[in-house]
């Protein structure tokens, strides 16, 4: 039976591998090509890789992508844990409703959300108008919109549902008797969280973290339309190189370098999170 089930998964696994590896193979090949008169000429040239190696701008933007992904991961984890744990305590019908509410932001398109944020955070927006109305501020807080703060806030908001869902699924599997035993043995709620709940939910945290990290690090539209003059991203540069510059070799090399860097950081994150004793207990062989 198990063997049959594995066979059933093979076509899907093969499609995923092919869909992932084929474009990567193309990128690797293109990164060694040359461009002559807007034609991609097969060659074994290291020009693109050489330019990438010495470009401080490219590496700065790759580092910025990593930082953006990590900060969104940390903020969504901090905010997501209380929400996920609260969900586990709801009645079944309440859980269904709560999940729908949680996912509501994802039902609207990204552009709609972006313009909504502009209305909320703008100089004449809801927050500034409210604060001015209450007499808290005299002048609008300009940093609310078109700043690194905006990017961080919106990436956290956009990705929070993914983190909450992952932690919630993991938290539902925690045997509540373990928490009760910890409390009976004198553990304070915060100790019970850090010594029982947190270790046992680290697989969910790991899944949520990897998802949020990948989505936030690769985000282009939100930084571009809400980040103001600080909204440049490695993804936008890749887009620029493929399009405007028609420098497909350099675009391919940059895309591969970005991918490799994000893969390494994600692997390190996964390795770190799954080293917890609780994770090993849940995952078995980790």
């Amino acid at each position: 039976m198990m063997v049959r089930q594995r066979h059933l998964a093979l076509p899907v696994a093969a499609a995923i591998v092919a869909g992932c590896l084929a474009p990567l193979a193309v990128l690797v090949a293109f990164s060694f090509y040359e461009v002559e008169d807007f034609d991609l000429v097969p060659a074994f040239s290291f020009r693109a890789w050489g330019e990438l190696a010495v470009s401080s701008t490219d590496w700065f933007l790759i580092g910025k992508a990593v930082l953006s992904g990590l900060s969104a991961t940390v903020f969504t984890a901090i905010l997501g844990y209380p929400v996920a744990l609260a969900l586990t305590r709801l009645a079944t019908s309440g859980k269904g409703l709560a999940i729908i509410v949680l996912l509501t932001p994802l039902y609207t398109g990204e552009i709609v959300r972006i313009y909504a944020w502009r209305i909320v955070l703008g100089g004449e927006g809801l927050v500034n108008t409210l604060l001015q109305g209450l007499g808290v501020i005299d002048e609008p807080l300009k940093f609310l919109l078109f700043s690194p703060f905006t990017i961080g806030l919106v990436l956290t908001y956009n990705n929070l549902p993914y983190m909450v869902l992952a932690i919630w699924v993991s938290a539902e599997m925690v045997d509540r008797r373990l928490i009760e035993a910890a409390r009976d043995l004198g553990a304070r709620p915060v100790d019970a969280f850090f010594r029982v709940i947190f270790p046992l939910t680290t697989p969910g945290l790991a899944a949520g973290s990897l998802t949020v990290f990948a989505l936030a690090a690769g985000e282009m539209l939100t930084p571009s339309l809400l980040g103001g003059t600080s909204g440049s991203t490695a993804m936008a540069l890749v887009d620029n190189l493929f399009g405007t510059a028609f420098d497909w070799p350099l675009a391919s090399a940059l895309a591969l370098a970005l991918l490799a860097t994000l893969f390494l950081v994600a692997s390190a994150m996964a390795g770190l999170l799954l080293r917890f004793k609780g994770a090993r207990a849940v995952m078995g062989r980790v």
Partner: protein
Amino acid sequence: MQCFTLNRRQMLGGLAAGAGLSLLGPMGRASAAVSEIVWATWDSNGHPEYVAAFEKVTGTKVKLSFLSSEDAQFAALKTGSASDWDIVNPSLNGSWRYIKAKVLKPLDLSKIPNLAHMYDVFKTTDKVKGEDGATYAIPYLWGLNPIVYRSDIHTEEPTYSTLFDPKFKGQLAMRDYALESIAIAALHIGIPRERAFLLTSDELVEVKKALIAQKPLLRTYWQTIGDLTNLFATGEVTAAFSWRVPYDALKDKMKVAMAKPKAGIMGWCDCFGIPANLSDEKVEIAYKFADYLLGADYASTIADIGNYATTSSIIRDKLSHEKQEAIFVDDLSVMQNFMWPVAPDNYSEWLKVWNEVKAA
């Protein structure tokens, strides 16, 4: 006098021949007629009502395929992923790369009679010609890219240097586009307009410094014209290098105006082009469409609805002065001040500078 007689057999034969010819006629047209052509263009250039007259006269439906960016158009033509496009829309300043990449057909100008009505500045441009001397694109629609500004805040008409003025910190915006933004910075630091698109590496270094110094003054770099219109409407921006769209959209709602800097007016111009791989059966209708774009029907409709001028003078004298003013053809000397943004040979260096400025 010869008497003309017709017997029954001849009569039937004649009727049969007539019937045959009457059938062949439409068939002949059908074989030449094309039921649909696909025009890849900007949404502002190709409203259905703009092409209705063409569809009525020719019986050929014009399917509009709206472009997301010129780069995407070029990439689609180059990679062959735009095989359904019959007519494309290169810009005047970008035509050279389509020509160099051999993605356009050379054009037979004798098939476009309305070329005779084109303004000289467009008729004589070499930007649409290849090294072989052939013409590969026809300019058909043009306009100016002004500085749009809030006239209640900027009491003096802005210049390009206004966009670098600390007095307006946090109220300014520039387009996220290397070509125009770098040229504007070049004009600001005193490089003459004849050389604004021909900067040396040393000049690019100076321009980069100016653009980095400008960054803290900017509210943002705008991405699309809808984006910029929104920025004006919500009070985030009071002056920006722009297209005319925010002015038209907001002039009845707030005090906005357009400035045409004396340092040089950035012009834009869209061209008609036929993809190199277009099938022969569609080429004739493509030429008719090119002629239509330079004709009176398209010019009247787009002037009336979109406030854009075609490159043809065919209806200019029939327009009211207000309409002439609105589409910038009231004073034709404006055409002497055009700066056509043309990507220079060292454009990759420009892009590098622009990316460095944005990442700084």
